[in-house]
């Protein structure tokens, strides 16, 4: 479990002995078989479909199996405008995914509402309710951008610790496994944001 001395490892590798740790093996397996949840919200979904299809082929990175059920998915790609009507369903789907789970916020709309930010029915960013691992700007982002985000996510997974004080959040029994699902209020979703995961940016006036 402990970190292997790099010098010893390279010395052994020169002799034809490959040394690894449980953590590296675990992360290597996880990062190379990320199964996304199969759902699209708006035009970004078309780019996501293109990424999954043969020309860009997300299968090269281990993400080929888009799962139609959250029970089998590791990654949620929020691809498109999140309307306030849709937000509770997305949070519920995220809750129903098993740990460890990751979220890619794809496109300007999923990040902040994008060009529809002024709309009364548009959620100003999915990170108000669920923790997002990778943001991709763009309107819509090209498939290459999604692939880049996928590789960034793989890098993030690779660095997660299995034990110790800085171990990954999904291994900690004290961390919440669910996030509160917003309800339809009289004028807006209630609560307007999950205070545990979202802090509105404040402007410092001097």
């Amino acid at each position: 479990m402990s970190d292997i001395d790099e010098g010893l490892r390279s010395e052994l590798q020169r002799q034809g002995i490959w040394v690894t740790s449980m953590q590296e093996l675990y992360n290597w397996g996880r990062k190379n078989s990320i199964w996304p949840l199969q759902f699209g919200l708006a035009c970004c979904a078309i780019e996501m479909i293109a990424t999954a299809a043969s020309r860009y082929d997300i299968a090269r990175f281990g993400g080929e199996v888009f799962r139609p059920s959250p029970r089998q998915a590791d990654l949620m790609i929020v691809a498109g405008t999140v309307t306030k009507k849709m937000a509770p369903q997305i949070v519920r789907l995220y809750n129903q995914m098993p740990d460890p789970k990751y979220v890619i916020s794809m496109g300007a709309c999923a990040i902040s509402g994008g060009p529809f930010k002024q709309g009364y029915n548009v959620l100003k960013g999915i990170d108000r309710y669920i923790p997002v691992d990778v943001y991709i700007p763009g309107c819509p982002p090209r498939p290459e951008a999604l692939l880049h985000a996928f590789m960034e996510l793989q890098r993030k997974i690779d660095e997660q610790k299995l034990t110790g004080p800085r171990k990954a959040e999904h291994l900690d029994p004290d961390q919440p496994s669910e996030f509160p699902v917003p309800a339809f209020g009289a004028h807006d979703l209630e609560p307007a944001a999950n205070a545990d995961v979202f802090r509105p940016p404040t402007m410092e006036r001097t």
Partner: protein
Amino acid sequence: MTPHSYLFIVIFLGVALLFPIMPLILAWMWRRFFQPPRPGAEKNATYECGVESIGEAQIQFRSQYYLYAIIFLIFDVEAVFLVPFAVAFTGLPIGAFVAILVFLLLLLEGLVWAWGKGCLNWAR
């Protein structure tokens, strides 16, 4: 000829048992030592495309739906049998012809009955 010619079946059984049980044991050990389970009401809820499920899954259909079953038989299932019947029509023995005729007449009777009952009227 080896003395134990059926030994490979025993070995095969052992491997066939170990193969599914080993991953389960590994998964159990993983849960035991690394990843504690974190269940929740929302997480364990019935998956229904992200919408909260309403009511029970085991519901009973009204008996009035038998009309749809009959119409479905006439217009859908009958067509499945009619096409091969029509293709093989010239080469059919008399017994097969009578059998399909009985089948058709039975369904035709159903059609007449449904027509008479007024099920085929557009606005009821």
